[in-house]
């Protein structure tokens, strides 16, 4: 069968054709919303119209058949409209309250998991990992699945002092907002990369490789028509590997994950913040990464017990002090938590007013 005529630069379709009629009618005229429970919220328009949202978890990797199932449900209850969130949940919107319970019943029957609204834990922002990325030093989807199985009660029922936004990055490229999450896992290399000098000269551009290194650890090796890496300076970021395939940094035994905490992106109460390193290394333990998962759950529980209502993880830690955070969690403080890259000036303490 002949292919249709291709078109270039058409851009995305106009969003308006995908907006449910109630959204079109009340566009920009929403008055308030209420979180009814972790699975449901209602938005009320100035016109008095009400729009209920039911949020459903997603593993982000979806088979087309699952998307079709979501579509069938949207056709049955939502006039064929549905939307997704920036954290990859799917949302079913109903304007008729009578459809709400039947919708939820069917979602439950079909095995969809509802939740993620309000002060709890919602879907984890994550990267491709071993499923589809060349640079991954862990699998992101597997880690997320293992974490969320363990934290599931915070998704569908149990509440926390505020939202806890989780993220997983499968390397320090961090294709997601991992660096500003309440608790995040970032996969790390810990060994200096190896260079295949034979293929280097044919595959890589010397200035680009030298320029790719943030710590200036790479210098030319004219004899080999290749490069050398200064082991004292290399921080294993893998950027050289990204620009030059003959540089190999994958190391199954020593690649692992680090845990960072206390970031946020909104400006509520306090300014957006980066997440900070608290656990420098845990070995990769597929399929369930039990130690990394236990560490995250432990931090969530200590936060839940100690934070004031509305405090995000980072705000709670700033109020009590990082020294207290390490004490309360029992996490060992290591050299890796002291910045020796770009932020030391800003992060060392310059007063004797700390807690014992």
């Amino acid at each position, binding site marked *: 069968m002949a292919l249709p005529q291709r078109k270039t630069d058409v851009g995305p379709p106009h969003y308006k054709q995908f907006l449910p009629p109630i959204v079109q009618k009340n566009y920009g005229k929403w008055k308030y919303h209420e979180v009814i429970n972790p699975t449901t919220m209602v938005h009320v328009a100035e016109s008095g119209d009400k729009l209920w949202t039911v949020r459903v978890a997603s*593993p982000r990797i979806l088979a087309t058949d699952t998307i079709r199932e979501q579509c069938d449900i949207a056709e049955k209850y939502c006039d064929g409209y549905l*939307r997704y*969130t920036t954290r990859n949940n799917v949302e079913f919107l109903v304007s008729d309250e009578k459809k709400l319970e039947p919708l939820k019943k069917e979602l439950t029957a079909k095995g969809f998991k509802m939740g993620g609204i309000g002060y709890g834990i919602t879907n984890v922002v994550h990267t491709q990992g071993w499923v589809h990325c060349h640079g991954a030093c862990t699998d992101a*989807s597997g880690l997320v*699945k293992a974490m969320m199985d363990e934290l599931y009660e915070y998704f569908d029922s149990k509440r926390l002092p505020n939202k806890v936004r989780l993220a997983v990055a499968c390397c320090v490229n*961090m294709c997601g907002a991992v660096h500003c999450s309440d608790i995040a896992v970032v996969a790390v290399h810990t060994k200096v990369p190896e260079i295949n000098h034979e293929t280097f000269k044919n595959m890589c551009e010397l200035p680009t490789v030298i320029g790719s290194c943030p710590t200036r650890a790479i210098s030319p090796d004219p004899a080999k028509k290749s490069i050398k890496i200064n082991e004292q300076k290399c921080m294993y970021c893998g950027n050289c590997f990204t620009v030059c395939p003959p540089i190999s940094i994958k190391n199954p035994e020593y690649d692992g994950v680090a845990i960072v905490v206390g970031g946020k992106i909104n400006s509520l109460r306090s300014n957006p913040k980066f997440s900070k390193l608290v656990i420098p290394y845990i070995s990769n333990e597929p399929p369930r990464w039990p130690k990394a998962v236990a560490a995250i759950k432990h931090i969530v529980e200590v936060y839940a017990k100690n934070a004031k209502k509305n405090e995000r993880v980072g705000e709670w830690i700033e109020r009590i002090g990082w020294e207290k955070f390490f004490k309360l969690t029992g996490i060992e403080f290591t050299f890796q938590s002291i910045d020796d890259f770009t932020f030391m000036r800003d992060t060392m303490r310059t007063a004797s007013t700390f807690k014992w």
Partner: protein
Amino acid sequence: MAGKKYNTPLIDDLEKGPWPSFVTEMKKAAKNNEMANDALGHLEKCYTTRKGYWKHGGIVGVLGYGGGVIGRYSEIGDEFPGVAHFHTVRINQPSGFFYTSKALKEICDIWDKYGSGLTNVHGSTGDLVLLGTKTEALEPIFAEYSSRGWDLGGSGSALRTPSCCVGPGRCEWTNYDTLDLTYNLTQEFQDELHRPTFSYKFKIKASGCACDCVAAIARADLSIIGTWKGPIKIDQKEVQNYAKTMDINAEVVGMCPTQCMSYDGKELQINNAECNRCMHCITRMTKALSPSGERGATLCMGSKAPIVVGSLLSWVIVPFIKLEAPYTELKDLIRKIWDWWDENGKPRERIGEVIEIKGMRSFLEAIGVAPQPQQIKEPRKDPFMFYTDADMVKFKAKEAEEKKTGKYNF
């Protein structure tokens, strides 16, 4: 149709437990699809050896575009021929991620015909990601989608697919039309999106308020954060309703970062001149409090993940801009920003890094934005600064004027 049945004990374990399983999704796709089936075997091997097997992206794409497809090949394609090529196709999502079932089903049908049947809904940047196809399928895929009104998203050193929060579609807090702005900018800059000519990637994200539901401040080179200029309107009757279930002094007044609020048990008061519009009180009492007056956005720039020289959060560049179609002021500014970046950036330098290297002054002057205290947390603390000849002429002229009038003008 499915070929080899792989033994996958490690990833099978990830089908257990309450959270939806990506392995179940992969198996679902694998039932009718050789590529998805081999992707399962390939992943089990990664779990067994604790190592990935994907090669660096190759240069693949569709005619006339330099991006939108991420080349992906396996190092062990002989063992898993279904994933020997496993390219990603990025489809530019509609603003706000709203769909009709008809449109989504059509996307699925085409994808099943040419690809693995696996997707990411959505990728981190916002595109609807089609995961895994072969080189020879790329042109047919593009013809099928583009003829139906779908286009590819950005990749490589180009404008990346802009994305936004739900905005006026379903949120009372938005200060501008995030959906329309995102659509409008994406259409305006189609060339920059499809044909990489930049030093590195450039991301635009639009959030309607300081809640920043698309994480613009942390991961967009241009972060557009909605805000307003007028006072916060108070519905005292609703305040009383909140008082029945909430300790307003502890949960709202006491947590106000500027301490510009008070509540005496009867009436809530806000000293709007001291408010920094953080949104805390509004989010806690949305029925009682709402922004008013002039609406628009703060433009911040430069945020990025750690590669190469550390993470950055976006810096305030333009404290306030009105955002109404056709957004001419913003578009002109974006073009000036790209021109300066083009002149000054080296390959793989994000704009935030170039601003750090060249100096904020060079950047602000090039784009025609005046220095303003809203841009900084605090002024510089060292005395190492540049004085241009023009600066000195200006300072001297000011003093001469003061001598004439007899009145200091600091």
